[in-house]
């Protein structure tokens, strides 16, 4: 982990609510792993005071690039959205424990919605490198909102899109789709991110099919490196509740241990 001032190469709207930012930061681009994140200072004033955690959406060591895909919602992300090409952006990272891939796996199933699309996208690429096939169910309000589809497909993923618009993102439908996919293909592990409902669903499905699973979680952060215990969530380890730090013990956790979702 390092604190660096990266240079903005691109910061464009990809749909109504999301922007894609590319930062030139060779000192850190080489160290990135899928599931890890950066803690970003959005402004050099004190409003907002704290940094904002953002998943690594893409990274490219050769070009020295780190990419973020972010939803513009509050004060911090609005300031990020205002950054222009060649502006500097203060990155601290990469941080946290990313996704773990078992080299023996042959295919994984990824289910994502919202910002989870950003977090899970680079996993597909890493899987491809290890010769693991990604199957993805991407959920969004409308088909245009499904952000990482092209990127995932370019990395060899089979993508299923479900939307609120046509009702296919309904939990029952997604559950059926999951069971089907698992029946039809030899899925070795499940991956998801964020959404409480998706996490609950996936945990149930994983238990039923006795599959391992990983989930990337979010929580408000202070330090982002494990010092302050601001970002904890409750987990079940050996039948007992423990409070683990999303920033340092995660953000990727074992699907079966998540309690609060």
């Amino acid at each position, binding site marked *: 982990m390092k*604190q660096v001032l990266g240079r903005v190469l691109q910061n464009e709207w990809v749909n109504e609510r999301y922007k894609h930012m590319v930062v030139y930061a060779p000192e850190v681009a080489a160290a990135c792993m899928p599931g890890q994140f950066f803690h970003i200072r959005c402004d050099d004033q004190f409003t907002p005071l704290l940094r904002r955690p953002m998943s690594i959406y893409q990274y490219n060591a050769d070009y020295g690039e780190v990419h973020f895909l972010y939803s513009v919602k509050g004060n911090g992300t609005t300031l990020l959205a205002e950054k222009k090409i060649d502006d500097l952006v203060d990155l601290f990272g990469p941080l946290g424990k990313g996704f773990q891939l078992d080299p023996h796996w042959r295919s994984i199933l990824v289910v994502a919605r919202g910002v989870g699309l950003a977090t899970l996208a680079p996993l597909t690429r890493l899987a491809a490198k290890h010769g693991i096939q990604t199957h993805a169910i991407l959920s969004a309000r409308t088909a245009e909102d499904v952000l990482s589809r092209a990127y995932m497909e370019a990395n060899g993923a089979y993508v299923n899109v479900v939307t609120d618009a046509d009702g296919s993102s309904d939990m029952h439908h997604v559950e059926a789709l999951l069971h089907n996919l698992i029946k039809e293909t030899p899925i070795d592990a499940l991956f998801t991110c964020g959404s409480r409902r998706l996490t609950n669903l996936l945990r149930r499905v994983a238990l039923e099919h006795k599959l391992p699973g990983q989930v990337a979680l979010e929580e408000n952060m202070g*330090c982002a490196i494990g010092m*302050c*215990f*601001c970002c904890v969530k409750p987990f079940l380890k050996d039948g007992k509740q*423990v409070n683990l730090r999303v920033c340092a013990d995660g953000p990727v956790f074992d699907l079966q241990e998540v309690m609060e979702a």
Partner: protein
Amino acid sequence: MTNVDLHVKIGSLTIKNPVMPASGTFSEDLANVFDISRLGAVVTKSVVPDARLGNPSPRAAETAAGMLNAVGIQSKGVDAFIAHTIPFYRNFDVPLVVSISAETADRFAEMAGRLTLNGVSALEVNISCPNLEDNGRSYAMDPAQTERVVTAVRRTTPLPLIVKLTPNTNDIVDVALAAESAGADAVLIANTFLAMAIDIETRRPKLGNIMGGLSGPAIKPIVLRMVYQAARRLHVPVIGCGGICSAEDALEYLIAGATAVQVGTYTFVQPSGMLDIIDGIERYAERHGVTQIGDLVNTVDVSQCVSL
């Protein structure tokens, strides 16, 4: 590097510069970011007698130029602390200040006794944490309670005692004097302000614990005032802590009367910010011809002011 002597004394402990982290905003992890032996001292998260889970999440929220936290004290307990944390810092050439907290004076004293160990340079007695006591009350809200607990701790350890006060009191000076008379080697002003934030869409408190502690630049002017008031009356050193985000802020505290300072929230903003603060203090001292940093302490010039 320069001709400025940055050493300051906290009781019998001499530290090489007046900047240290604030309890709960520092841990071994920061050694991955910079060389922590450059700090005046390191200060641990408050350790409690037994393992505790701490408060429910969310534990942090942001406010204007500040943050709220209701971490409570999530701790592995004192045994794990002695087994793992103290040995870690043996690898660094920096004094270790251990912050302790407990729910009774006896347990405070017991902890102090147990932690009087090789490798521990001083104890910080956190009698101010607003999250542990009923309705946010704490020992440090009251001079008599403060005197009672500090007296108990003083009996069980010869280590320098830094007593950490709460700003949630209407007379910081009385509480500070009580700590001093009970044997504190320094008073640390201050912990966080009891505060709150509400999400107006859900109408729920933003913290799982309803209330929490406010820290960061927002609180600096209030804490600085308390340091100024206390430093005028005490004989032991005052350590200032609240909202320090720059060398200028740290210097404001020194000039107001603090012998040393602690940096909390700013480390979240700039992980290596404490080093910039040390360097900035040194540059200021050089520029102002201050050869020993202690000469700056308590030099606020009120000659042109009308006293309140």
